[in-house]
């Protein structure tokens, strides 16, 4: 497993696609989530209408709201990016047939996959650190420029928020990785993953969230549970579009962890049993 972990890090580091995905994630987070939000709310257009005044909304980019503001895009753009990253990491091996080259080296199949998982765990950890760190830095700069005062959340909340970020990114990565192994095709894995995310979770999840029968099913979806966890990191003001959550945060944490384990085990089981270079 160590051997395959070391090989995976080399492959991941030298792959441009990974850096591009990381770049998109950081750009969305810092540019849209922070800098543009600040600029727009600082100079709101004349027709700006909101139950909460812009001068209050702007506090979202200040240190006091670090976690809420970083976690909010995690369920959408963050999830999408991580599904792509995870999907690429496994599906490409089938597309390039390199899975065959790997499996005739020494490590067994489980070790090969665990090495991949360990590498993805490290990547999601690093992404979480960099995302949270750079967001913190940006919000510090913005509050300084603004001349307002703001305080950081307590350390315990910061740690918990970091844990939530890492867990959510890891769940989506594992989902992508699982899809890559199940479909053995980059297009199918990414297409399937994103369709699930944006059609099932986002669209149906929003439209039918109060429909009896469907509501009970929604309560088990990873995205719904992730939102519940995110919502527990409250903004310091009453956000106009904060809806009620279908599940409570504790349940959210547990379900997300179950998903992480489930995707991992499923991926290993499928990978172990399936023929390579045949069907």
């Amino acid at each position: 497993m160590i051997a395959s972990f070391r090989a995976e890090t080399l492959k991941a580091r030298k792959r441009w696609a990974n850096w591009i995905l990381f770049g998109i994630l950081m750009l969305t987070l810092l540019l849209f989530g922070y800098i543009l939000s600040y600029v727009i709310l600082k100079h709101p257009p004349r027709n700006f209408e909101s139950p909460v005044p812009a001068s209050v909304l702007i506090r979202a980019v200040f240190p006091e709201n670090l976690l809420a503001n970083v976690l909010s895009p995690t369920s959408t753009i963050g999830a999408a990016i991580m599904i792509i990253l995870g999907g690429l990491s496994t599906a490409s091996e089938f597309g390039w047939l390199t899975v065959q080259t790997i499996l005739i080296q020494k490590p067994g199949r489980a070790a090969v996959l665990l090495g991949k998982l360990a590498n993805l765990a490290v990547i999601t950890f690093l992404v979480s650190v960099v995302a949270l760190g750079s967001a913190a830095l940006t919000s510090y700069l913005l509050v300084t420029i603004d001349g307002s005062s703001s305080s950081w959340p307590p350390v315990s909340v910061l740690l918990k928020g970091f844990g939530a970020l890492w867990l959510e990114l890891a769940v989506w990565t594992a989902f992508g990785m699982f899809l890559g192994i199940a479909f053995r095709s980059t297009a199918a894995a990414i297409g399937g993953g994103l369709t699930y995310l944006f059609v099932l979770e986002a669209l149906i999840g929003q439209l039918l969230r109060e429909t009896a029968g469907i509501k009970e099913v929604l309560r088990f979806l990873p995205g719904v549970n992730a939102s519940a966890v995110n919502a527990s990191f409250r903004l310091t003001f009453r956000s106009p579009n904060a809806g009620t959550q279908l599940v409570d945060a504790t349940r959210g944490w547990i379900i997300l962890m179950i998903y992480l384990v489930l995707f991992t085990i499923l991926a290993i089981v499928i990978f172990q049993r399936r023929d390579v270079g045949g069907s």
Partner: protein
Amino acid sequence: MAQALAVETHGLTKRYRTGVLAVNDLDLRVRAGEVYGFLGPNGAGKTTTLRLLSGLLHPTSGTAMVAGASPGSPASLARMGAMVETPAFYPYLSGRDNLRVVARYAGVPKSRIEPVLKLVDLTDRARHKFKTYSTGMKQRLGVAAALLKGPDLLILDEPTSGLDPQGTMEMRALIKELKQGGRTVLLSSHLLNEVELTCDRVGVIAKGKLVAEGTVDELRARSGGRTLRIRATPLEQAQRSLESLLPEQVRVIDGSLILNVDHAQAASINRRLVSEGIDVSELRVDEQSLEDVFLQLTETPTLPSPATGGGEQR
């Protein structure tokens, strides 16, 4: 002579999910230290067999031992290197980085990389990306990767496919060199002169079954050894005449009649054809080529595409 077996299979069988029986009750024995040629036409089941031996496929039934352990187990993989079907590498990495990745998986020190690059003559292009390589270079990188582990057993699926004459000769020399170094080589091919030049023993596979095994000379002897080759016009008339005289012994290859008969009969056969007004332009005794042996052993009714579903046994 060491008679230890590098590869041994018993009743090895693989039926794909599509229903194609690609390998059928195969008993294969490759002795340690030899170069074994695994020979068969397209779709015969060569690649499938090599995939089974590398642990990439799970057999439908039967057992195998490869380098002293069951296929695909770490113990077996540690002692074998393989290139199956196509050299598969990361297109975005250089040749050298690809070998670094493989070395990390295999748990082999980095210091092995430069020597194998040199061995396959790829040092100059090692820093270029794999996707920029020509077919021959990809092939050589595949061999380099298979050699990284310094394996006792080397499995190469059509190692000369895509190589130019120069590259083919270098590959042959490399295989000889590996044998000299005490390694066992199992290579597949559908080219006869290939195995004739490099292999100690040959196994011929057709439709998933081993139809013959032995040294090249043994195989040649087995199927009659010498033949009579006759060029005559009109060909059909000559064929009919000879078939009535020697039923089941006459074949037409490349516009010549090939007869499996004692060459002492040459004079009387010639007389017969001439007396029937047939022109005989050539009549000679042929040492039967391996080519003929091969065609004879793997003879199938000509299918348009033997690679698609041809492995199914009646």
